[in-house]
């Protein structure tokens, strides 16, 4: 099985490059066969995060969902840093980050509330409000978008997810054959 990517700048190749780099880094940190389930779980988390992150980075900020994913990852890493390490300086940072998160969530909530009325008006007209809500939960960063843009984002998100799954499957096969 070959993993040749004909187009060097395509989404697939970008993602593959990044993801492999991240995998190598993770494998370098710890050997594959770890005994404790907790470690294994951590490793799983790291790999998943690496996959999502590399995909989001490959898309840069061109899409709302990628921006939301990157922002989420960064805020999470910041929080983790804060909780694990230095307290005093981090406290302010955590407060700021929490405030920023809260403000952003409030802002988003405000946007959602403000636009939900219009959305309901529009979507009741079309009758797809429930599914639209569900889709908004699934697609990262989809809370503050009307149905039109949401569908657009969903299409791109599905495309990227399929690419991700394809690449990861191939890598898994490679791994298993060793």
């Amino acid at each position, binding site marked *: *099985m070959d993993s040749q990517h004909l187009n060097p700048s395509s989404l697939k190749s970008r993602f593959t490059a990044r993801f492999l780099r991240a*995998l190598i880094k993770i494998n370098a940190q710890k050997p*594959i*066969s*770890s*005994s404790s*389930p*907790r470690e*294994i*779980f951590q*490793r*799983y988390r790291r*790999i*998943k995060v690496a*996959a*999502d992150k590399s995909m989001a980075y490959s898309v840069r900020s061109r899409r709302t969902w990628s921006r939301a994913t990157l922002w989420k990852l960064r805020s999470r890493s910041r929080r983790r840093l804060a909780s694990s390490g230095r307290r005093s300086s981090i406290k302010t940072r955590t407060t700021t980050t929490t405030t920023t998160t809260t403000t952003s969530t409030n802002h988003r909530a405000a946007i959602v509330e403000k636009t939900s009325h219009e959305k309901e008006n*529009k979507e009741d*007209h*079309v*009758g*797809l409000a429930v*599914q*639209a809500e*569900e*889709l908004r939960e*699934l*697609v990262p960063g989809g809370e503050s978008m009307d*149905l*039109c843009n949401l*569908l*657009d984002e*969903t*299409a791109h*998100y*599905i*495309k990227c*997810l*399929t690419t*991700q*799954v*394809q690449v*990861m*499957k191939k*890598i*898994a*096969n490679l*791994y*298993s*054959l060793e």
Partner: protein
Amino acid sequence: MQPCSREMQAMNSLLNPTQQIPLQDLQINGNSHHHQQIHVPSSSQFQYPTPTSTTHHDDSFLEQILSSTTSFPWSDETGPPNPEDNNNAGFNYDEMVLASKLRQHQINGGAAGNPFSAMKMMLMMQQQQQQQQMMLAGRPTVASSAAGGGITTNHQGGEGSMQALYNVFGDGSLHGTMQAKSFVGANSATEMTQSQGSRPTAGEAVTAPEKPKQRVRARRGQATDPHSIAERLRRVRIAERMKALQELVPNANKTDKASMLDEIIDYVKFLQLQVKVLSMSRLGGAAAVAPLVSEGGGDCIQTSANGGSHPRNSNGDQTPSANDRLTMTEHQVAKLMEEDMGSAMQYLQGKGLCLMPISLATAISTATSRSRNPMINHENPTNGSHLLIQSSGGDGPSSPSMSVLTVQSATMGNGGLEGGAASVSKP
């Protein structure tokens, strides 16, 4: 009534530019027929040959109108309308105005369309005039009669309508209406803005050709107010995006938007799940199961064995043996589970089995009943919410090499999963 012909719209485009001119200005400048109070924008396609004298005779003007092929704007003619001016000059002026407009329509439009467009123009003007009447507190009866007469007489044809114009306007008592008509050009915009929704449609229909990129041209019989246009545009865009999504998502044969959205939602969930599972499988697979099992019952999705070397024939062949094996395994697993979850999981993995929540398993079973896939056995109810899924390939310890099985992969049947299965079966 909505004018739909091009001539009407052209005329409306004429009327629109005069939007900002208030009524008072026109009244103030009532007597000066010469200068142009209303500045016509350059985009107007009508050029007006300025009349030189205020008093005109019918014949000379009619000749001028009929002979001239150039267009002219409303503004000059209607610059000086004066409701008190009841003399023949004013009357003729307005008459000339209307006749010239009619002539223009005849010139611009085809022969066939002339009567129709002319009639439409008449109707529109009369309707505007009627509203103008209300504004001016003029003579509504006269206006209505004029309208009625004008409409009926317009059926005769282009030239005939011209004559009809004269017939209608021939009455001396219609001066007020004429004055009202003269106001039409100047104030049509103002009254159009004030009038009901049918009026602005004309304006919007007119602006459509001028700004084709921004607006969807209103079609006959459809509402053209901005809200419905925006709604329509929005719906069109949503339909486009749904079509694009249909190509991406398998099982996209649903015509209903709601079911299509459900399909999309399920597919996104499925893909996210696959990413999770794949990132798990890369860890050297089997052992990764345990933490997930302990993590939470609901989150417990495992890789399961896929076809192996006999993707499609596995079901029938292995049924009898599988059952026996499974019962034995079940007991073993049940025993192990009481002691330690991790060891139970490892035992399962060693056998090439996995554990998964009943909800997912039922979903898979319904899906796999139509396609090739491992069978599902129900465990004894003591263990609650988990089922055992057997690997039909039976590769055992190399279970991490098995590709992911989830609900939709079973239904998908083609694409990457089969490719994965095929590549897996090689070793």
